[in-house]
């Protein structure tokens, strides 16, 4: 049995003596007080583990002394057991109200007393454990908050506000929103216009914030280099897919503002409906999510298709994450899409909508806590977004990069068996800043041309085979077989570029060692499963200024002039 320090407060010396002996017999240390004042003083000085307090004492009585002692004990649990005669049972409720924990009646029963002392000691041990755990939790929590602050500082350096402070943008983003997974990015395009990205990562805390950094890095980096929004999204999707665990993703709405064409394109994946308000303040168009969130699809399945629509000066786009829709009032009701569209409809002027939305949400949630989630952005189309001639040259270096150059690769059979030159070609072309805006389409052209040259030309496969599902399987089976058996053949790739700073011409020529095909027949035939239509010519034609077949049809040359008439 452990030795406890027991304070016995009783004005009667006989009672004190008996109690003291009983308690000491049980291995405990005893300190005695003869009245209430003494009890409080002794308690303060010696801090016993448990107090046995006589109720009726002259001067400061037991109840009052107990009140004071409990106050001094503060957070610690020091049990106080009242000593009372049976006749005082009437006022027991009174006693316990002053903070006492139990009572012991006279004559003192040593068995009962020991049991009570042991029991209360167990209780105070438990209490101490609880306090320690609470303090430990508080310490760990403070540590975590500190780490979050550091993470936030790193994040702010990477995901700076970009051009969110442009006059054509109004936005609401709480400083700690990133820890709710909410991200807002905006960057001017080197050739004029703007990219805007609103992201909503799954989860909370650091896991939600972690994806935001590479996303911001890619967004700002690529936009500054002149890449199109489709390329940026593709790159972000791939990055997130590779770093986020399965089940984690980023719902996003991305906008490409093209003031020159008075148009905008959006890509939305997993975000609630957003609205486009025309400058007359009347017409409202709904923009809906058509894609899966970023980070879900693998690169080959990712759909970067954007929806384009006209956007005149003064037209405004409203984007938000689901934080606004799900904002709750004190009754637990959600704000909802209904209320949101009503606010937009009921506003007096188009320019009032932004403030009206904020006010409506504030009034709705009034009283309840959550505030970090209501991310909102208004983007207005404006002439000021057009290319700033002065800064464009210095900023993204459109005039930098290789202007006049040629490059030729000749790949023999042994190389063709295991090397795909398309990514390399793409990489070389992307060194030309002016070509980055159409990077995706260029990749498609090059991939198609090489595929034709290699599969139809060198391997001699007929694309008509790919028409039926079974044929499809057979085609690829054959392809694999012929690649393995390949001993002779080549593909020659020539790239030639000339440019004058804000425009340029790329000429791609591919020649293969195959038999070619009768390209002159194309003008007269519709594509219906012959070799020709299988070569994806219509697709190439839509991107290239011209396409020319030479020789047996085993040499093709395409010309691409940038900027394209229609970008992205």
């Amino acid at each position, binding site marked *: 049995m452990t030795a406890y320090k027991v304070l016995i407060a009783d004005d009667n010396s006989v009672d004190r003596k008996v109690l003291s002996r009983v308690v000491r017999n049980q291995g405990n240390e005893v300190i005695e007080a003869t009245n209430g004042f003494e009890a409080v003083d002794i308690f303060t000085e010696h801090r016993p583990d448990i107090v046995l307090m006589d109720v009726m004492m002259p001067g400061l009585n037991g109840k009052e002394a107990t009140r004071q002692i409990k106050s001094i004990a503060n957070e610690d649990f020091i049990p106080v057991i009242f000593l009372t005669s049976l006749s005082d049972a009437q006022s027991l409720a009174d006693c316990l109200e002053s903070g006492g924990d139990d009572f012991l009646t006279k004559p003192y029963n040593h068995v009962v007393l020991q049991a009570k002392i042991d029991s209360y000691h167990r209780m105070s041990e438990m209490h101490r454990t609880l306090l320690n755990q609470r303090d430990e939790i508080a310490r760990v929590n403070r540590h975590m908050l500190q780490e979050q602050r550091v993470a936030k500082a790193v994040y702010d350096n990477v995901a700076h506000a970009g051009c969110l402070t442009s006059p054509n943008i109004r936005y609401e983003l709480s400083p700690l929103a990133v820890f709710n997974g909410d991200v807002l990015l905006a960057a001017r395009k080197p050739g004029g216009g703007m990219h805007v990205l609103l992201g909503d990562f799954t989860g909370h805390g650091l896991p939600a914030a972690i994806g935001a950094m590479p996303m911001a890095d890619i967004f700002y980096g690529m936009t500054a280099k002149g890449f199109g929004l489709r390329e940026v999204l593709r790159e972000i999707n791939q990055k997130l897919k590779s770093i986020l665990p399965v*089940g984690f993703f980023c719902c996003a709405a991305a906008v490409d503002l093209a003031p020159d064409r008075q148009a905008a394109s959006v890509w939305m*994946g997993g975000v609630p409906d957003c609205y486009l308000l025309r400058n007359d303040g009347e017409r409202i168009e709904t923009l*809906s999510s058509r894609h*899966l969130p970023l980070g879900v699809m693998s690169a080959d399945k990712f759909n970067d298709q954007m929806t384009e629509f006209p956007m005149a000066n003064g037209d405004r786009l409203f984007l938000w994450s689901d934080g606004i829709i799900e904002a709750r009032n004190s009754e637990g009701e959600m704000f909802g899409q209904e209320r949101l569209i009503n606010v937009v409809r009921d506003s007096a002027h188009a320019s009032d909508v932004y403030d009206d939305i904020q006010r409506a949400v504030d009034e709705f949630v009034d009283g309840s806590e959550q505030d970090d989630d209501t991310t909102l952005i208004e983007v207005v189309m404006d002439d000021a977004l057009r290319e700033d001639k002065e800064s464009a040259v210095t900023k993204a270096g459109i005039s930098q990069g290789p202007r006049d150059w040629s490059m030729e690769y000749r790949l023999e059979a042994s190389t063709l068996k295991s090397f795909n030159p398309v990514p390399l070609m793409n990489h070389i072309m992307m060194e030309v800043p002016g070509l980055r805006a159409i990077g995706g389409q260029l990749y498609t052209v090059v991939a198609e041309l090489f595929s034709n040259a290699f599969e139809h030309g060198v391997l001699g496969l007929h694309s008509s085979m790919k028409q039926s599902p079974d044929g499809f399987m057979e085609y690829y089976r054959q392809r694999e077989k012929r690649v393995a058996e390949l001993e002779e053949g080549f593909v020659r790739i020539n790239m030639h570029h000339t440019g004058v700073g804000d425009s340029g011409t790329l000429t791609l020529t591919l020649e293969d060692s195959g038999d070619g095909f009768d390209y002159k027949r194309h003008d007269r035939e519709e594509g219906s499963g012959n070799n020709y239509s299988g070569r994806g010519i219509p697709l190439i034609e839509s991107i290239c200024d011209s396409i020319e077949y030479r020789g047996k049809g085993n040499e093709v040359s395409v010309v691409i002039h940038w900027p394209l008439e229609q970008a992205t």
Partner: protein
Amino acid sequence: MSVRASLAGNGQELVIQVDGRFDFSAHQEFRDAYESAAQVRKYIVDLGGATYLDSSALGMLLLLRDHAGGDHSEISITNCNDDVRKILAISNFEQLFTIQ
């Protein structure tokens, strides 16, 4: 919130029923439901009793899909109420799952 799993279709299908709020609190149970079952050909997630779906539930469905073979998986999400259906539509999950 409760999760119940049962085999159907001659042991070829696993039916996972989720009732109540399908949110992060369902994480462990949902995972246990398909991880502890033997591999089946088809999965059916019955949301007839589900009142709500949040982004962590979407994440759990993606985890199931990954477990069931990713692109080769066969998963149906059935008995969705309007709210649930709407959430799945916004995220375009019909591109990954059969929604009935």
